[in-house]
């Protein structure tokens, strides 16, 4: 910087100080434009940010609720849960099963039970820890009606109608937490999913042994893919039609004795005419009974048949078929299967090095494992393992739906197929529309707060337009006032600038005189405007403090906003000064001589 350029800022500042009244007016003029704009932007920013923050923080706004009740399989729910946009997902039982009664002393309340699980954002962000074991979290309204507090014990009662009388199941539970009122205004209680499943089972008439509730077990019934039929004479078309009609069977194929080992897994040559009747969809034991009934005068051989099933015994993989318990098959079961309890016995081909008690595992489909007894002899004649038809039918059923084996009762029971609904929370607000679209594309109408989110975004946008319109007016006015003032200042100082030119200041140096003055005026005005904004923002936030949570503001600007505002004011000031600077070019030092 040359000596004369270095001298200009001092001269510009000296002039501002000399004309301090006029300069103060200009400071105030700049502050009068910038201050209200900062306040306006602070209000817009603070209000919208607070609302947006509340939207973001409140998990209710990220909740996606299915509007229909259907069976959502565990696999489908697992897939949905694995979606990157999903923060929390817990399956839900049928809403009709979710009505329970809680009693606390003399208080009794029928309320809606909802499932929860670790990580439940609604509970976690509303002052409660998701319940585990025999515990529940009450909504504030439920707690008020029950006059209950955290840690208190309640009695959960569930009713079901059996025949013409009601049966009640009850158990003691602990209140592990109470949500903030903002979580929900409804009277609800949040339970671990397994407790709600127990309630649903009880309402469905089933027993819940772990809670001491009596009822039936959902026993698994074997299903078969067809029957092996043996007759003493050929099958005429009328008989064929009778066998296919109303029995569930759809196809009849003749079976030669020499093919039996390959197709059935055992030899069969008891009758002159053998047939394999198959179904399109596996059927229960009633299908066997129906066939027997229709052929009751022909003394037929009717044996259940299942298509080969892949099993694992230890490390050995084998196909398994049913070996019916009949004299003609030479089976070793000898009436081992009684009632609903299939015999867990199998025979294996000779040379298979598995003996005694071992674990049978079904890897595919729904997975199932239980112990079986491998008989020493006889051996299977073919290459397949053979099991009693009841056990083979159960394994066949397991290929279609999930089963469980109860060791204490030695029974196979049905696992639940799916869940009627779910509680889903998206990870962010922005994920809500995507998940909504994804679910609706699968034919699952859902309810979200998307409209509310969109409304807020629109409010933000519209407030932005209004702000920028006002800001544009203010900025134009402010820039005009600053330009006029600096221009007038240059006009007033033509003689002084001419004298500086005579003394030897170059025109280039003199050009920077109004630029520096604009810089000082802008910065001074900005400081005043900032002081005004901080005072007013503090006052406004103080007035609204009661309605604000910690960290929330009605009027707020970030450092980056203030930085942009400062840069904008300085740039605008320089643009205004540039107009005045052009006027300086026109000043000839000779004017100083002429004006004297």
């Amino acid at each position, binding site marked *: 910087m040359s*000596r*004369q350029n270095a*001298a200009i800022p001092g*001269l510009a500042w*000296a*002039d501002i*100080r*000399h*004309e301090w009244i006029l300069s103060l007016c200009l400071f105030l003029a700049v502050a009068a434009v910038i201050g209200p704009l900062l306040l306006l932007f602070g209000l817009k920013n603070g209000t919208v940010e607070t609302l947006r923050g509340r939207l973001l923080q409140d998990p209710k706004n990220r909740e996606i609720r299915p509007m229909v009740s259907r069976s959502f399989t565990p696999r489908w729910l697992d897939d949905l849960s694995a979606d990157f946009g999903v923060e929390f997902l817990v399956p839900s039982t049928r809403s009709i099963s979710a009505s329970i009664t809680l009693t606390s002393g003399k208080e009794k309340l029928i309320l809606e039970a909802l499932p929860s699980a670790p990580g439940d954002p609604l509970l976690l962000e509303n002052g409660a820890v998701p319940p585990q074991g025999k515990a529940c979290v009450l909504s504030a309204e439920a707690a008020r009606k029950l006059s209950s507090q955290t840690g208190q014990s309640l009695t959960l009662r569930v009713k079901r109608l059996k025949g013409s009388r009601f049966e009640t199941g009850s158990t003691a539970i602990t209140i592990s937490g109470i949500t903030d009122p903002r979580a929900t205004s409804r009277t609800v209680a949040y339970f671990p999913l397994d407790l709600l499943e127990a309630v649903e089972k009880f309402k469905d008439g089933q027993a819940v042994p772990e809670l001491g509730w009596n009822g039936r077990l959902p026993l698994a019934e074997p299903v078969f893919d067809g029957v092996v039929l043996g007759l003493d004479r050929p099958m005429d078309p009328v008989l064929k039609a009778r066998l296919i009609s109303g029995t569930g069977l759809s196809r009849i194929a003749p079976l030669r004795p020499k093919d039996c080992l390959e197709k059935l897994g055992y030899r069969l040559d008891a009758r002159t005419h053998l047939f394999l009747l198959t179904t399109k969809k596996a059927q229960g034991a009633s299908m066997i009974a129906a066939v027997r009934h229709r052929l009751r005068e022909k003394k037929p051989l009717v044996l259940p048949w299942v298509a080969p099933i892949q099993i694992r015994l230890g490390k050995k993989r084998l196909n398994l078929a049913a070996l019916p318990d009949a004299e003609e098959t030479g089976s070793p079961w000898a009436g081992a299967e009684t009632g609903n309890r299939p015999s867990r016995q199998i025979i294996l081909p000779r040379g298979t090095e598995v003996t005694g008690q071992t674990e049978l595992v079904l890897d595919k489909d729904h997975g199932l494992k239980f112990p079986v007894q491998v008989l020493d002899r006889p051996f299977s004649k073919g290459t397949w393992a053979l099991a009693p038809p009841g056990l083979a039918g159960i394994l066949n059923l397991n290929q279609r739906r999930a089963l469980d084996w109860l060791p204490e009762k030695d029974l196979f029971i049905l696992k639940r197929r799916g869940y009627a609904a779910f509680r889903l929370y998206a990870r962010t607000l922005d994920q809500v529309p995507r998940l909504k679209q994804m679910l609706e594309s699968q034919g699952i109408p859902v309810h979200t707060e998307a409209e509310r989110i969109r409304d807020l975004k629109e409010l933000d946008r519209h407030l932005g337009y209004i702000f920028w319109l006002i800001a544009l007016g203010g900025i134009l006015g402010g820039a005009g006032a600053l330009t006029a003032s600096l221009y007038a200042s240059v006009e007033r100082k033509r*003689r*002084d600038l001419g*004298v*500086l*030119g*005579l*003394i*030897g*200041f*170059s*025109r*280039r140096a003199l050009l920077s005189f109004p630029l520096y003055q604009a810089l000082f005026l802008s910065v001074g005005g900005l400081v005043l405007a900032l002081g005004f904004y901080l005072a007013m923002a503090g006052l406004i936030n103080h007035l609204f403090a009661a309605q604000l949570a910690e960290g929330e503001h009605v009027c707020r600007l970030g450092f980056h906003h203030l930085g942009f505002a400062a840069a904008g004011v300085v740039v605008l000031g320089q643009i205004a000064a540039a107009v005045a600077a052009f006027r300086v070019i026109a000043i*000839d*030092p*000779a004017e*100083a*001589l*002429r004006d*004297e």
Partner: protein
Amino acid sequence: MKQVRHWRTQAGVRFELKVPDLDLAPGEFVAVVGPSGCGKSTLLDILGLVLRPAKADIFSIQGRESLLDLVGLSQADRAAVRSRHIGYVLQTGGLLPFLTVRQNIALPLSLNKKKQTGQIQSLTRTLGISEHLDKLPGFLSGGQRQRVAIARALIHQPDLVLADEPTAAVDELTAREIRDQFRGLSQTSNTTTVMVTHDRSLIEGQVDRVFGFRLERDEKGGTCSTLYETEAL
């Protein structure tokens, strides 16, 4: 200065200023007199490198080796030459109202590498304004302002000082005091001074040389003013 010509046309009337060879010696105190409109201020503009003459030969400052092409000098170069070699005293001082007396006087020094230690004090003491150094020009009398202007014109020890009616705004007694101080300081500092005035009594017997203007009209109604040296009054 040799053979400088400048012309301008104003309101359709052509005015031409002819300046013949002008050889001024260091420390010389020269007066230029003439009626209004004869070209006195235009002469100062040209001498002060404010106006670029339409036609000029060469320009030298006090016979220094560097010769300047008056027509070819850029605005920035002319400003640079002014800041180093030329000082000005204007009718009412031409002081900057927002600077103190000290700052006004020091202004030419801020454009040069010359140091001001003691110079301002001694110069203002000589001119009798040393007690006003921290005042703003607005608080000074007309005579005091002119003395400050003289101090500012001389502080950086220029080769040439151009004074345009420096005593026009003060009373006769003050005018004579200022003239005497001005002349004394110019001679002491060996600075050539060209003073334009219309007050002949002020310069009578007090200047080394006097120049006047000869006005002629041409057939087109234009005016031609030629500078010439008269006998000292």
